């Protein structure tokens, strides 16, 4: 079987850092290929080159035997090479049909839009994905998974031959992921070649035919998924053995530091009570829409609860704003690092000191030397890969951005940490490092609470598990004895300990 798309000897560097070095990859029609690698391994760069967003410094791209020179995004699109990014890029106020035909709207005479044809075509392409929705409604009203289908439909409508999916399941629930996979298999039968970028090995082994592994911008290996074990891929990605996937659990539990009693906020969550202790890691599980982030943001002081009380170190902090909570050692690390976490245009140092300018200020003036010292110290503690502390954060890979976000919060010297999806969309190696950091903080007497949508992570990292369902706390389990099935029973609303 000859390759549909082949990239040979691709090299690319930015800011003096080699992002890709002599990378080869190829894919045939009807093949689903996993692209694996840690953050900063060069996956995104490679895909950006494939879609014409970036130009390689060296190397050739062959498509259907034809050599593509100076590929730009519209040429790539015209050949049917499309990418669906992790962050969707639709216009929320515009209709589904118009989003699908963005830039290629069918016309009647005199430049008027042929809405009828557009709707019919949109319905036709959505039917290939087994999605029956009103194509006249604004895209913003659809669920995230439906929006993703619209993005895929958009790619299909340009006669897609190569489809790249970047972390497509990172914001989907399990059942939504299943629907996505069914669709991918359908497209595979149509002969479309699919690159599937994911950190979830289970998914890769479930859906992919073949794999290519990158590490630090270098090609490590490729082959058929059927002929390899998950552990082998992990080993290829990190270049070392992961002797255990989660750090040891805590041995003793310290005193209670944060206690939340009966807090409610209209339309968000109801009657939530819990406490967290020093030297303990508490995992909060729930499906999308369970109200976990809303609850924790209220505890942090982004919003105030309608009723109930929050006590930090035995002091009533219910009415505190975020600044007061940060100063007293309570922090919340957002799940949305781009929108709520980082100042992407600003450099690493400026980001690290953002939540505690006080510690680098003398007589009202920011001391640049201190900023540089604090920046370097915490970026290094988090083992972040960077070329220059004064490079903008947006030039880092996703996992390294996440490390900068954590560095920013460790720099405020917190006592109680609430982390929202701290390892979403990042690779195995960085994930392991973040888990180890959290356990170390806990062992050193910090109280740690984290929200996660990944069951293995909830069971593996936590000492205790809280489960939320539709704005209510429904279960509390000891992580040593809990099982995935049990947690899921609570999360899906089939079991409820507190609200009968």
């Amino acid at each position, binding site marked *: 079987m000859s390759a549909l798309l082949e990239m040979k000897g691709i090299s690319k560097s930015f800011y003096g850092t080699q992002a890709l070095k002599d990378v080869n990859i190829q894919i045939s029609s009807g093949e689903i290929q996993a692209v694996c690698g840690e953050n900063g391994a060069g996956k995104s760069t490679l895909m950006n080159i494939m879609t014409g967003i970036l130009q390689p410094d060296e190397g050739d791209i062959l498509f259907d035997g034809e050599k593509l020179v100076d590929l730009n995004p519209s040429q790539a699109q015209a050949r049917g090479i499309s990418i669906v990014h992790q962050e969707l890029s639709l216009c929320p106020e515009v209709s589904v049909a118009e989003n699908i035909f963005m830039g290629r709207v069918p016309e009647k005479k005199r430049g008027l839009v042929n809405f009828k044809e557009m709707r019919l075509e949109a319905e036709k392409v959505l039917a290939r994905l087994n999605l029956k929705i009103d194509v006249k409604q604004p895209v913003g009203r659809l669920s995230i998974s439906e929006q993703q289908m619209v993005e895929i439909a958009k790619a299909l409508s340009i006669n897609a031959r190569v489809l790249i999916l970047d972390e497509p399941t990172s914001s989907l629930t399990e059942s939504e992921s299943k629907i996505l996979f069914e669709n991918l298999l359908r497209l595979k039968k149509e002969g479309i070649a699919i690159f599937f970028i994911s950190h979830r090995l289970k998914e890769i082994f479930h859906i992919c035919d073949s794999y290519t592994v990158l590490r630090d911008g270098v090609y490590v290996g490729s082959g058929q998924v059927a002929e390899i074990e998950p552990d082998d891929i992990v080993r290829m990605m990190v270049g070392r053995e992961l002797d255990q996937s989660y750090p040891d659990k805590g041995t003793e539990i310290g005193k209670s530091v944060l206690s939340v009693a009966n807090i409610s906020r209209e339309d968000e969550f109801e009657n939530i009570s819990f406490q967290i202790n020093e030297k303990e890691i508490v995992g909060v599980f729930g499906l999308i829409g369970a109200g976990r982030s809303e609850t924790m943001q209220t505890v942090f002081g982004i919003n105030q609860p309608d009723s109930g009380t929050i006590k930090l170190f035995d002091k009533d902090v219910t009415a505190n704003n975020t600044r007061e909570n940060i100063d007293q050692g309570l922090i919340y690390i957002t799940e949305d690092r781009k*929108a*709520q976490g980082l*100042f992407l245009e600003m450099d690493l140092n400026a980001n690290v000191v953002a939540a505690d300018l006080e510690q680098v200020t003398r007589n009202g003036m920011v001391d640049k030397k201190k900023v540089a010292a604090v920046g370097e110290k915490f970026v290094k503690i988090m083992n972040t890969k960077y070329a220059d502390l004064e490079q903008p954060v947006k030039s880092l890979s996703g996992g390294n951005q996440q490390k900068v976000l954590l560095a920013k919060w460790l720099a405020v010297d917190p006592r109680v940490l609430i982390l929202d999806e701290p390892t979403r969309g990042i690779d195995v190696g960085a994930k392991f490092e973040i888990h180890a950091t959290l356990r170390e903080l806990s062992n050193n007497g910090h109280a740690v609470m984290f929200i996660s949508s990944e069951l293995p992570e909830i069971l593996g990292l936590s000492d205790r598990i809280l489960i939320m369902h539709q704005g209510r706390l429904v279960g509390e389990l000891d992580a040593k004895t809990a099982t995935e099935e049990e947690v899921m029973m609570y999360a899906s609303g089939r079991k409820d300990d507190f609200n009968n």
Partner: protein
Amino acid sequence: MENAQNSSFLKKLFGFREASLALVIIAFALLLSVFAPGFLSRYNINTTLIGLSMDGIMAVGMTLVLVVGGIDLSVGSVMAFSNVLAGMTMVTLGVNIWISVLVSMVLSIFIGFSISQFVTKIKLSPFITTLSMMSIARGLAYIVTKGSPVSIGEISDLFDFIGGGKTFGIPNPGLILIILVIVMDFLMRNSKIFRKIYYVGSNEEAAKFSGINVNRTKILVYILCSALAGFAGILNLARFGVATPTAGTGAELRAIAGAVIGGASLTGGEGTVLGAFLGIILVALVNNALVLLGVSVYWQQLVIGLVLLTAVIIDMKVHGAK
């Protein structure tokens, strides 16, 4: 080793946008001194400096607003309002000029405070809020004067000295601008409170989640911007001795142009006071060149527009599109 240090120093200097802007200004001034006789005359330099000082003061305030991610279209009108109010309270009510000045400044600050409340509490867009305020303040200036300029005559030696005198041979309005630029540039680069403006402008949500009081930062910025516009109005009164309802017409555009040429980003998070100052100088030099070369004043606005476009395009090419 030494070489490496040198090259990184040069890289920093040329990466430093104010340096390249200063070079452009110097080159332009050299050209003018050759081709436009009279450019280097003391008279020309002094009038140009006085002419740009009011715009410069407003460009300083505009920079703060642009960095925080907003815009203030009302500065020219607030300048006129403050100018007219100070003049008229004195002329019609017969109060002491310093009390008039105080009243004017308090009301300018109040305008800034109102803008900030609309922007932070009601969440109106700064563009619409200040577009309305632009019309309201200008309207007030016309109402108070019934549309025509009112002379205030000679009032106080000190007041006249501030507007018309010189210190160390430099016209006082220019000197005031220079001091303001030095102080505000230092504060914007170093002070904790002013650094927060960059964080808020760069990513408002992230600033909120980092415990930075976003609203307080915006309130500070809009108040400072209006206060500086009001101050420019007072300075204008001190300079010309006439309460003029048309003062500062089009000043918002020149202030925005100066700030943007100097590196401020309309999407927030970027910009320096020094850059805005240099931007305003460039705008003033272009105007001055047109005058000296005998080009009709009607061409000025057109040329300023072209200069702004050119500066922004060059910046995009050099620093990468945003």
